[in-house]
């Protein structure tokens, strides 16, 4: 494992009476790709803003390569590349002019602006549209240009704030291809999202936050292991199950955990072949009508559910 290039220690931020980030600490090793996962309002964007020096934390510190950011003009900011959630582009400037402008903010020379601009456009597949303004682009193209702008000064650390919001699956795949290329080039990536599949595809480690606190910080494999090697089985009933059924169902052979959500019963089971017949028989004996039955391997959603008791996309 490489030494940490980005360290977050005890970050806290309040806006009036609202506690946006209560206590967030984690670190990212050089070349690592970490997913910062949490539902809307969990404090992800506020955390990212503090990392990028956009807002000052009430408490805690951010270390870039072991050194805290000091002020607006700290050269360490050059090591960061921020991809905001909003499309931070000038719609009336051409794609090349956008790149040149944002690159110039990092004092790049004209030659660097030209060469790196061309390379960034090439990476995101927009070389042919360099002279066109973003207002003529599709949503996915704008997202890709939004990513390219953050690459111009060749940052070591990429801070991505939900970079695929509102794009079609094809564009999302294109962005992921770009990010995988960057990861392969050794960039450190902190990827904020509430899409589990994105974290699973891109990241080796995940930091789960909710209500401004870190709930879990572990490699993906470890988190899955915490949930066991078992499987997840969901039984849809015609009517919600009575609350006293949960304890009884938990005692059935092969069943590890049971949770009820509206008319669904969600089982964590060690062995489907043992648990499913026992569960269906018990439900039939107690007059329950099963409308649907499905099973899946545990994923981040189940991890998040078990950690927070909430679905990831709940607001």
């Amino acid at each position, binding site marked *: 494992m490489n030494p940490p290039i980005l360290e977050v220690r005890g970050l806290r931020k309040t806006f009036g009476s609202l506690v946006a980030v209560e206590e967030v600490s984690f670190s990212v090793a050089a070349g690592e790709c970490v997913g910062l996962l949490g539902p809307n309002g969990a404090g992800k964007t506020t955390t990212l803003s503090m990392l*990028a*020096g956009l807002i000052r934390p009430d408490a805690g510190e951010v270390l870039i390569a072991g050194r805290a950011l000091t002020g607006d003009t700290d050269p360490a900011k050059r090591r960061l590349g921020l991809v905001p959630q909003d499309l*931070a582009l000038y719609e*009336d400037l051409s794609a090349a002019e956008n790149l040149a402008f944002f690159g110039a903010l990092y004092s790049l020379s004209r030659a660097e602006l030209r060469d790196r601009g061309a390379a960034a456009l090439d990476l995101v597949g927009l070389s042919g549209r360099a002279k066109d303004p973003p207002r003529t682009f599709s949503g996915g193209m704008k997202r890709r240009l939004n990513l390219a702008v953050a690459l111009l000064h060749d940052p070591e650390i990429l801070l991505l704030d939900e970079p695929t919001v509102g794009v079609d699956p094809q564009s999302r795949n294109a962005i992921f291809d770009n990010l995988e290329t960057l990861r392969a080039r050794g960039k450190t990536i902190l990827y904020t999202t509430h899409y589990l599949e994105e974290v699973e595809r891109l990241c080796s480690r995940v930091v789960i936050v909710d209500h401004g606190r870190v709930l879990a910080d572990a490699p993906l494999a470890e988190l899955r292991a915490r949930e066991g090697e078992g499987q997840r089985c969901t039984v849809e009933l015609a009517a919600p199950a009575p609350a006293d059924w949960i304890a009884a169902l938990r005692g059935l052979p092969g069943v590890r955990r049971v949770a009820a959500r509206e008319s669904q019963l969600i089982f964590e089971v060690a062995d489907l072949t043992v648990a499913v017949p026992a569960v269906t028989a018990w439900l039939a004996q107690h007059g329950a009508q099963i409308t649907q039955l499905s099973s899946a391997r545990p994923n981040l959603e189940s991890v998040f559910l078990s950690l927070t008791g909430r679905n990831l996309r709940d607001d």
Partner: protein
Amino acid sequence: MHPLLALIGKDLRLHVHNRRALILTLAVPIAIASFFGSLFGGQSGRVKPSGVPVAVVDLDHSAVSAQVLSNLLAEAGLRVSFPTNEAAAQDAVRQGQLAAAVVIPANFGRDAGRGLFGGGAKPDVVLYEDPGRQMESGLVRGLLTQHIISAVARNVFNGASGRQFTREGLARIEEAQGMPAGDRELLRTMLGGVDRWLARVETNGTSAAGAGGPGGGGGGFSLPFNFREEPAVREAVHQFQYNGYAHSFGGMSMQFVLMAAIDWGLAILLERQRGLWRRLRAAPISRGTLLAGRAASSALIGFGTLAVCWGFSMVVFHVRVLGSWPGFVLCNLAVAVFAASLGLFIAAVGRTPEATRGLAIFVILILVMLGGAWIPSFIFPEWLQQASVVIPTRWAMEGFDGMTWRGLGFAAAVKPVLVLLFSSLVCGGLAWRWFRWEAD
């Protein structure tokens, strides 16, 4: 590339890219300034003034009334018409077609002459005035008084009519009851002397009032002075005179530069809403650079707008810098810098685009009205003229007027420029301090 240059270049590119806004930014102030310029006298000496519309109804038809009419017709500032009767004249004033109407009553010449010596009832000259055009009717009243005194004096102290008036006056002195003997003797001597002098003039064939013209040295009775009208401005080689467009172009172009500057201030708030602010603040550049970049680009655009507007006024309306060119350029630069810093200040105070727009309208209206951008500040009431010295735009207009049609030297530009730059520093400093720097 230096980030400051990049920030300025980006704003200039955005300004140029928006062709429609660019054209409107230039066309609108030019159109409005042209209109206001024509209202305020236009090009003096090049365009004949329309004159104050006034009607005269002569019910007297005497030599005196004829003289009054003749003099009024000769006035360049009046446009005299002769309606058929008094009712028609009054109606035309009521409908706003005329600024005033004058009715010279029957027997005016005779009664006015007697009235001069205190005998008989004085005639009533009726002046119908439009209450909404008091400045114009005031002008009519002044000119009418001047020409009536001139005509009556000419009649009373001239020839046979003059002798008749003096003799009537002598007769009234003799008939007056209770007049002290000493007063009676003095008046008898004075009027008797006038009568004898008129008789002598009559005998010698010389006109007593004939010397009433300018430079006349032959004696006689007339107004005791002549008017010699001279422009108080320095005249350049080409004999340019007062040009109303100079003031209107200065005022209107400044107004639109202020509006544009507010827009550039608003642009920062919109950048914040659109997430661009996050990207700008993530870069290793100082707050000072960010604000300076916006201020510099806004000032450059403002200066360019002023240059185009002035250029148009010079080519089309023959506005000239009769004073100091360096002073003129400095005044324009100072106005552009002030507008830019004001835009940032308003954005910092408003905090959101919606709040800033409302605040901006109020501030700009106050600045342009009290600054004399619409109408010259010398028209203001005295208290307002005193109060408006704290308005930076008032100084800007003083500078523009001084360097253009007033033809003042560089020294006259120094104070306006310093006031504007000081105001810019205050606005810029407060903007820097009050601006919400943290990203949302």
